[in-house]
């Protein structure tokens, strides 16, 4: 909930009663909102054109070759997810910054990385011809059947790595700042309130953002492990890939990032929709419990992509079945139902933004039903990888996330200008979006029930008519999207003209009383890196654990263990992970000493760079081409293993430059990444 402010925003376009809890957005918040929102919407529009082209190709209307179809399909997938990710990152930043001092520097860094990644993928597909799908299911990138060169698969992987790293940077900043501002992880997640130890919960967007950040960091780590492994394979064909482990990691990354987009959006909707309903949204105990459940479900549901890989362990299949169904509960009960409670009898202010927010809720509900049906294993057996899947994820990505992306930009512009479009034009636009969108997904649902497989450039005999009808509906949706842009254009012109006349505003504190940004604060205050409160290993218990880990990890250097590990690539990589762990713990210990810490200085940006670059470099060196020639020389061999520990040391020291929780968590993630790498990558002589 946004607290009342000293100089409330004029109600204008918003609900009159929203004046009680809505403050003016500050310059930096508006800048972030527009930067992420406009870039993301532009990307979404471009990728939508590709989608339209693909649907007409399936309807036999374009003459596009399968080679180009699959390039566009690959780009459409990565580009669309990146586009909506950008918008929702901006939306959450926009609503979170007033209550948590997120760092603009990190925001710019994550934006640059994600956009850079999107450009890399664009070049890899359109110029390089890469077309292994947005899931790049290993080992498909290395079986191009003459369709793409090595450089394009490398560039595509680098692009994914950049997008993932950008989101990692964003999530780490969110986690560090929500936990610091709230006074700890359990407070940021609302657990202190849930168990009655505190009278009030944090603001809803703080809880949502903390959950998204944790799951985002976990899944981006898995993504980095597999992408780095595959990058190694591009310059060393001796690298082998365990297809099952790799598939788990790819979907942990890919499914989660696509899924997290909607949870990012939910965090933003909790703040923005109430502004049109005139009722603030407040976190309750059910809300806190629901988001805690989502924390687990988001991280575990990805495995339903492997239902038809019968060799997947049964515990994973059953766990995913449970997680995939019960993930519905928090969404249906807390977000969707509670939002409709806000709207009911509220004298809701219907604008372009608020209408899109509302109809987007329906898309999540209907798409969710399609997804939950498919998440039941006996049903998935008959629907797996048919276009039913395409239908359900387009229902909630297109009819929820894309509509909310438009809604967010519309909300920014409506607030800047205190104007919206005419009711007639708005109704026609919403009509086009609804008829076009549900018509398109409807044709996929029907064709999916018929058994038409997905990702077919050429449709099975007798099923082309579904694509023809679908293409017409897709065109209607595109017209609706265009109509939205046309309505927003005059608002954008007005906003642009007024861009230098806006005020810097308020920064309401957290509802739980952990106010962090003073009211009326100068936005430049945010440019300062926050001080670190304590060291990652600051208690006797921490030190005890660290020493215990060090004692265990030092075994990785014993000659007998090293020799034994070289009988298998997996064990060899596991040994490297042990040496890396040793270095990480030493780094954490050293950096936690006050004298060393003073020497290193307060440089969180350098710390962040170290925890990302050091483990990544180490894994890029863990290819047979690099380490096999060294094994014949004892000194070089020993130095290579010491280098593994040195990478760990740099990582550990870097982690001490972050907040205590952020440092411990990133150190854990770095070690986890080396373990996932060891599990997925095989091949080579040892």
């Amino acid at each position, binding site marked *: 909930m946004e607290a009342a402010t000293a100089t409330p925003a004029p109600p204008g376009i918003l609900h009159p009663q929203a004046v009680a809890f809505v403050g003016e957005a500050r310059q930096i918040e508006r800048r972030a909102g527009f930067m992420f929102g406009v870039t993301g919407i532009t990307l979404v529009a471009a990728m939508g054109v590709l989608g339209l082209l693909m649907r007409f190709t399936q309807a036999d209307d374009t003459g596009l070759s399968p080679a180009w179809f699959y390039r566009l399909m690959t780009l459409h997938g990565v580009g669309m997810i990146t586009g909506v990710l950008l918008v929702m990152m901006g939306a959450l930043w926009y609503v979170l910054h007033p209550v948590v001092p997120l760092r603009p520097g990190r925001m710019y860094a994550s934006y640059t990385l994600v956009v850079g990644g999107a450009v890399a993928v664009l070049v890899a597909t359109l110029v390089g011809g890469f077309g292994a799908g947005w899931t790049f299911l290993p080992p498909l990138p290395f079986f191009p059947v003459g369709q793409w060169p090595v450089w394009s698969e490398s560039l595509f992987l680098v692009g994914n790595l950049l997008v993932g790293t950008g989101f990692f940077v964003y999530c780490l900043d969110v986690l560090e700042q929500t936990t610091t501002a709230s006074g700890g992880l359990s407070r940021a997640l609302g657990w202190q309130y849930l168990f009655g130890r505190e009278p009030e919960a944090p603001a809803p967007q703080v809880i949502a953002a903390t959950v998204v950040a944790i799951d985002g960091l976990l899944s981006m780590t898995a993504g980095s492990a597999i992408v780095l492994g595959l990058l190694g394979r591009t310059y060393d064909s001796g690298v082998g890939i365990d297809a099952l482990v790799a598939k788990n990691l790819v979907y942990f990354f890919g499914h989660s990032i696509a899924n997290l987009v909607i949870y990012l959006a939910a965090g933003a909707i909790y703040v923005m929709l109430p502004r049109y309903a005139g009722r603030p949204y407040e976190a309750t105990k059910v809300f806190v419990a629901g988001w805690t459940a989502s924390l687990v479900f988001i991280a575990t549901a990805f495995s339903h992509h492997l239902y*038809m890989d019968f*060799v997947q362990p049964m515990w994973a299949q059953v766990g995913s079945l449970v997680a995939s169904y019960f993930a519905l509960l928090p969404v249906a009960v807390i977000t969707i139902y509670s939002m409709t409670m806000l709207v009911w009898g509220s004298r809701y202010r219907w604008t372009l933004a608020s209408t899109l927010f509302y109809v987007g*809720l329906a898309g999540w509900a209907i798409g969710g039903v399609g997804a939950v049906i498919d998440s039941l294993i006996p049903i998935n057996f008959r629907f797996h990888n048919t276009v039913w899947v395409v239908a359900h994820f387009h229902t909630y990505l297109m009819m929820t996330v894309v509509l909310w992306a438009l809604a967010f930009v519309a909300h920014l512009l409506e607030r800047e200008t205190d104007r919206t479009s005419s009711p007639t034009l708005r109704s026609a636009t919403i009509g086009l979006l609804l008829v076009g969108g549900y018509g398109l997904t409807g044709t996929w649902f029907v064709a999916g029930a018929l058994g038409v497989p997905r990702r077919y450039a050429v449709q099975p005999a007798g099923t082309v008519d579904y694509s023809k009808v679908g293409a017409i509906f897709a065109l209607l949706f595109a017209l609706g999207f265009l109509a939205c842009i046309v309505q927003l254009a005059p608002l954008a012109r007005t906003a642009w003209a007024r861009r230098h006349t806006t005020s810097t505003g308020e920064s309401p504190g957290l509802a739980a009383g952990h106010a962090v940004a003073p009211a009326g604060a100068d936005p430049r205050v945010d440019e300062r890196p926050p001080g670190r409160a304590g060291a990652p290993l600051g208690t006797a218990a921490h030190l005890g654990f660290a020493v215990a880990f060090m004692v265990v990890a030092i075994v990785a250097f014993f000659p007998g263990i090293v020799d034994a590990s070289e009988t298998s690539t997996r064990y060899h990589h596991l040994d490297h992970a042990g040496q890396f762990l040793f270095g990480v713990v030493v780094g954490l210990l050293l950096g936690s000493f006050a004298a060393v810490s003073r020497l290193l200085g307060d440089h969180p940006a350098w710390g962040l760079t170290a925890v990302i670059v050091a483990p990544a470099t180490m894994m890029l060196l863990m290819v047979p081409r690099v380490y096999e020639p060294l094994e014949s020389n004892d000194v070089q061999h020993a130095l290579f293993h010491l280098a593994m520990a040195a990478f760990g040391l740099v990582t550990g020291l870097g982690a001490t430059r972050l907040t205590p929780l952020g440092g411990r968590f990133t150190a854990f993630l770095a070690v986890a990444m080396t373990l996932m790498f060891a599990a997925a990558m095989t091949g080579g002589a040892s």
Partner: protein
Amino acid sequence: MSLHYGTPQIVIGGVFVVLSVLLASAFVVIGLQAGTDVSVERVHRVGYWLRKRWLALLAAIGVVVVGLSLLDLPYASGGASGRTMVTVTAGQFFWTFAPDRVPVGTRVRFDLTSVDVNHGFVLYSPRGHLLGSVQAMPGYHNQLDLTMSQVGIYRIRCGEYCGLNHSTMDGSFTVTRR
């Protein structure tokens, strides 16, 4: 081979349509009510009362459907005794079967693998009904148990994107009269 709707797919599709129409109707009603003026206290009193029941209903449905799902898992279990082993090998862009035909009524255990990338074994009955699917993965063997109850040619399509000719990667498996 032309595709036809199978009975399970028709039932599941029907359930989806009914639930979607109910949800869409609810959103229309709530949207129409949004313009009225109802006190927050009343909305909270009625809304939270209903929310508890909504949560209980969804949880109960979850327990039932997850429980029923666990009773009907497609995964092969137990030994292959009494079953005819059919080795299925996938590659860009072909299917091979050994043997490639069995008499009607044979209890088959399909043993699937791939020589290159991931493929999807999507099996259609001679009448064009999608019976089920399982992945063919390099380095692994996925096993599917099935009783071949119809005489004729069962078609296989690839269900996992595998490259340029993914959409034309077809195969067939014959079930003969006894």
